[in-house]
């Protein structure tokens, strides 16, 4: 099996890399974009050896918005599928007091990803095909004291993806929103995560590929998260504000 190129934005993330590997296994050429892209050489080498597909490395600073159009024009081909795995959680306690830290979280999870996908969406729309996959988060479903800075940025990203989907649905471009719950990655290393609620990046990648193929719109990677978030979303604010969850 083979297919068009897959662009991974934020390829250094464990989720981005797992999705890249899963697409490579199906014969897709892979474009890995990240800061200090040359340090991804071992990954490029590994994916090429395993799957015999072309893998290219591309320098990308998700926060340097003005560079994004040039970046997209420099790709060997306009990809068929683009995955945005750019994200940064930071520390909630820092984000509360240090506005610069908070701003970095908001820009990394909302502005940067939205800017990249907006430019890609226009190109996909002009071509009349393509799939955009945005890795958002269950944290965006409702702001909570423990991570509302990150959560609000992801909420913005989720809304942005929803709008893109609405706009492009009749244009042959599909948009998939992925809301992972806990995933065992660099971002969560050292956290004490409940096993039943935690996905590993490879399983997540398989779910994402399946969902993209079936043209699903929004997926929670572990179905239990759909239920968890349904409950969290529906707790009346008067009660919710007193809870610590």
């Amino acid at each position: 099996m083979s297919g068009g190129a897959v662009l991974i934005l934020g390829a250094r993330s464990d989720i981005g890399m797992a999705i890249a590997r899963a697409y490579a296994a199906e014969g897709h050429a892979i474009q890995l974009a990240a800061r200090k892209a040359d340090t991804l050489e071992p990954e490029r080498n590994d994916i090429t050896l395993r799957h015999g597909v072309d893998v290219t490395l591309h320098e990308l600073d998700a926060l340097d918005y003005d560079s994004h159009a040039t970046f997209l024009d420099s790709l060997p081909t306009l990809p068929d599928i683009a995955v945005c795995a750019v994200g940064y959680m930071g520390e909630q306690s820092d984000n509360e007091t240090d506005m610069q830290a908070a701003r970095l979280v908001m820009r990394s999870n909302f502005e940067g990803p939205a800017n990249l996908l907006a430019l890609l969406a226009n190109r996909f729309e002009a071509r009349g095909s393509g799939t955009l996959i945005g890795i958002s988060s269950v944290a965006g479903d409702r702001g909570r004291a423990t991570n509302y800075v990150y959560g609000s940025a992801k909420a913005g990203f989720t809304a942005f993806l929803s709008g893109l989907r609405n706009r492009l649905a009749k244009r042959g471009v599909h948009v998939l929103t992925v809301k992972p719950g806990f995933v065992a990655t660099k971002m969560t290393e050292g956290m004490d995560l409940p096993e039943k609620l935690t996905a590993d990046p490879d399983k997540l990648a398989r779910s994402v590929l399946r969902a993209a193929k079936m043209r699903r719109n929004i997926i929670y990677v572990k179905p239990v998260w759909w239920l968890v978030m349904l409950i969290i979303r529906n707790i009346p604010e008067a009660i919710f504000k007193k809870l610590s969850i």
Partner: protein
Amino acid sequence: MKLSGWGRYPVAYCRLTAPRTPDALAEARSHGPLIARGNGRAYGDSAMNEDNTVSTRHFNRLIAFDDSTGQLTAEAGVLLGDVIDAFLPRGWFPAVTPGTKYVTLGGMAAADVHGKNHHIDGGFGKTIDWLDIMGPDGTITRASRDKNAELFDTTIGGMGLTGVILRLAIRLRRVETGWILQHSHAAPNLTAAMEAFEAAHDAPYSVAWIDCLSTSDALGRSIVMLGEHAPLDRLPTRYRQIPFGPPPRRKRNLPFNLPAFALNRWTVGTFNAAYYRANARNAGTTYVPWDTYFYPLDGILGWNRIYGRRGFVQFQCVLPDDTARPGLEALLTATAEAGQGSFLAVLKKMGPEGGRLSFPMPGYTLALDFPVSDKVLTLMTQLDRITLDHGGRFYLAKDARLSRDMFHAADPRAATFAAMRRETGADTAFVSMQSERLGL
């Protein structure tokens, strides 16, 4: 976190970290002596250290492949199954493989694992060109047969006790197809089984399933299975479309522990008798896909749970040729008398020795699985004694409970190995629960 080997016995709370770079791995040494852990397929406590167990799972990248020689360079955390996935479609197969593909290359080197071709090709160590090893001081040394040969020989089969294997170069073998031409026949007793092995010395692969509950005249009755990589021109036409075999079978999962009463003398005895009869009836030559031939149990993820909540232990020893016959008889008789049969009893003829502490030696190896119980542990001590009396030794990758005295008595190389560790400082840098138990 709670950690155990594949046998789920013993279980211990271990501090487990998974560094992503050699520098981070070197840094992990600051938390005290450590042991590297691959995919956790050693049966007992070989890759467990309560204070500092270091997973190599992030060192999982292929580095290079030379299509003219079949030399693969890879990081130590790469799974054997990933190597097969990548290279079998191009006509290459591991030159030596154990009975599961869910092992890391580093783990295979550390245990110097053997396969069904050991009588001809030797252990996994023989297929290694070089190893990159992080030593006690955190520096990385490349060791091969020509350079740092001492480190090379002690690391192969050294159970991670000389350092952490980071990268290695191994040889794959060329194959024309992914099919195995299997010849199986029933051997009605131990004598017949051993004769079959001697007669089949030229068969590339040989192994026997042995009914360890049969007694008297049928003691040691076996199904002897010989195999060879099927060349393309001998493959039936219907398989030639897919010369590298059908895709691996859909995996079934055993999601829970079977209750302890599910395995008893009667159920295992019945299973073994039925298995023997079915295979005796179907003896002959068949074409088998590589996955079914080499990794029959990998099709059932979590098969280790059939032995119940307390886990299981495996007894595996090798006996030298001249005492193998009486030794095996004594081991099988003791097992049958205790009524502690296992389904997964395996007999295999072995070839030459490998690394300084590698398990194999010319002779016969017997492997038996038992669910953990006090009775079983008593039986195992008895089996240890029989092995020692017949000049045999034990496989550390399977061990979870051997005593220090028994181990040293059966394997005089252990003292030399331990002395080497003291000399290089490895004894205070690389320590597993097993190495402490066995005094290595």
